[in-house]
Structures are given as C-alpha cells and as structure tokens.
C-alpha cells in the first residue's frame, strides 16, 4: 500500500493506494500518529484503494474518534467493494462518507 499525505492549510488529505489489510494497517496507523496533531480536518481519499479488511476498519474508527473533537474526518471516493464493507459492518452509519 502507498500512502500519500497532502497538507492544505489545516486540512490533511491521506490518499491510499492498494490494499488496507492486516499487513498494511499498521503503516496507516503510524502515518496518522505522525500527522494528526497538526491537522484540524482529515480527508481520507480512497480513489485508489482496492479493498479494506477489519484491520483497516479498526484504524479508521480510531482516526474518526480522534478527529471528532476537531474538524472531523471525511472518507471520499470509495469504490463499490469498500462501500459494501462499510455497509455490511455498519461503518456507513458511523463515518462521514462522500
């Protein structure tokens, strides 16, 4: 998985490419740990994300909770496979998905 971070003012965009699973979720966790302090808003761009497993959901939930006290987290450009995972697990009701 590739992680691309872009800071625009106080808004951090993290674009993921590849697979967010047991093997790669710790990389995202680390990237968030390094960057979230300075971000007021977080945008997760999933346009190039192939799929997500529960290990990835765990990291997203944690980021969502961290950002709730600030400007929030948005998930954008979700493909059908990822959307299905969000729907089935109820994450579609928790996350702000555009």
């Amino acid at each position, binding site marked *: 998985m590739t992680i691309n971070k872009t800071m625009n003012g106080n808004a951090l965009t993290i674009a993921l490419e590849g697979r967010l699973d047991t*093997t790669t979720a710790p990389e995202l966790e680390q990237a968030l740990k390094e960057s979230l302090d300075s971000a007021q808003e977080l945008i997760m761009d999933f346009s190039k994300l192939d*799929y997500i497993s*529960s290990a990835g959901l765990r990291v997203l939930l944690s980021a969502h*909770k961290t950002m709730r006290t600030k400007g929030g987290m948005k998930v954008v450009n979700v493909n059908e496979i990822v959307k299905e995972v969000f729907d089935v697990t109820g994450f579609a009701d928790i996350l702000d998905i555009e």
Partner: protein
Amino acid sequence: MTELTLKAVIENIPAATAFIDEQLEALDCAMRAQMQIDVAIDELFCNIARYAYDGGDGEATVKFDFDPSDRTAMITFEDSGKPFDPLQKADPDVTLAAEDRAIGGLGIFLVKKTMDDMKYRYENGKNVLTLYKHI
C-alpha cells in the same frame, strides 16, 4: 485441488493471497469476487496466525478447489491449533455508535456476509474451514 502450507504468521498473508489470486485469475474470476475473497483470506489467515497456536509456532494450509459446473471456488483453511469454530461466534452489533464499537468479531462477520457459504469441521486434530464463493 492445489494447496500451500505456510508458517502461521501474519507476514505470510500476502503469500497466501498471491497463491489464491493466481488460481482465481487463471479462471477469469470477476474482480469483485476476487477482492472479497482476498479480504476473507486476510481475516481468516490473520485469525489463525494470532490465535490458533496461542503465540506458539504452527502451520496453516490454504487449499483451492473449483467446481466448474456452477463456477464455485472452494477455499479451505487448515490449522492444527486449538479447536475454534468461527461460525459459532456471535455476530457483532453493527448498529452501535462509534464509541461503543468493538472491532473483535467484525472480520469473521464480514466474511460470512460476503461469501456464499462457509463450513467448519474439526477433523484429525485440525480446524478445517471452507469458504464457497461463486466466481
């Protein structure tokens, strides 16, 4: 039937995934079904690596079989760890708010929802879990 035996560690999930992907691609599997199967491998191999051997060393075997009559892929996971039937695990409450959410159990729930069928048996000292998916 073709199979691959690996040390049951999470570092081997990509190898197990690549092995199954190779079989699926040779059969012109639809991309959506392949991604769902890859997620299932991530969840199930991870569970074996983390829990089957209580932190000790062990192996996991991944088997692939295919029924051309209805294009069903059968993916079987075997381990010699402690008996564990993931199908007996209660489904998580997916309606809870974010702060009340437990992530444990979500992986198996996801696999149940995306596969066509799952069967578990404990046989000759092994956990044998088979996934069925129309491709």
